[in-house]
């Protein structure tokens, strides 16, 4: 029954830190922290272009409704449904998962 709607994972390579997921989340359970850096190939330009670099991305599973709106709204498919329900935690803070915990399993 839990199927593929057990949790949500973040594919960082696709994330542009655009914040659409955090803004569209009806319960405000997503945070995105990022900063900007100049593009490397624009070093000599009069006005260097900047791009976002993701610093941290969190989902608070103690608040999340598993509605999937963040997944639907992400323009870059950086968020995906994943198998396996998020397990219970001993504190609410333990249910705030950061980018490492939200990353798809490697290998």
């Amino acid at each position, binding site marked *: 029954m*839990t199927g593929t709607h057990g949790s949500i994972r973040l594919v960082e390579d696709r994330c542009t830190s655009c914040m659409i997921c955090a803004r569209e989340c009806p319960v405000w359970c997503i945070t995105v922290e990022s900063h900007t850096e100049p593009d490397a190939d624009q070093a000599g330009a009069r006005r260097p272009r900047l791009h976002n670099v993701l610093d941290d991305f969190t989902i608070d599973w103690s*608040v999340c409704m598993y*509605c999937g709106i963040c997944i639907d709204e992400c323009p870059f498919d950086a968020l995906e449904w994943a198998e396996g329900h*998020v397990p219970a935690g001993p*504190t609410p803070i333990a249910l705030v998962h950061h980018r490492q915990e939200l990353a798809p399993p490697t290998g």
Partner: protein
Amino acid sequence: MAPVTRVYDWYGDGRLLVADLGLACCTLEFEAATLGRPEVDPAVHLASSPAALAVVVSGTVPDALVPVVHQAVAALGRETGCTPAVVAYGACASSGGPYWDSYAVADGISQFLPVAAYVPGCPPPPGSLEDALAGLVGAPA
């Protein structure tokens, strides 16, 4: 007041008693998890054999029900003579869930009760309650 209406012998071997404190929709998932489990009188049961006791709070806890939930858990402790481990089942009981910004809803039961385990979900599937309870008393045989 008869605050806690149902207590289940969770594994059927007397190891773990689970009391139901259902307030809203997550309770449907809790009830799905209780299917086929025998109900017991906790005071009688605990007088004859020691067991762990958990109380699962499922559903939204509005401020108006905070004293009721608090008294229900205290009454269960008095009746049984042991302190129940409180499980916050679902987003509302854990943090207020979608109502965390409401003036009328508690931001999770940990505001007024010590909580042993927080089960995420809106609602959580019955299987994740199994895992949370197994984590409290050790994996079932």
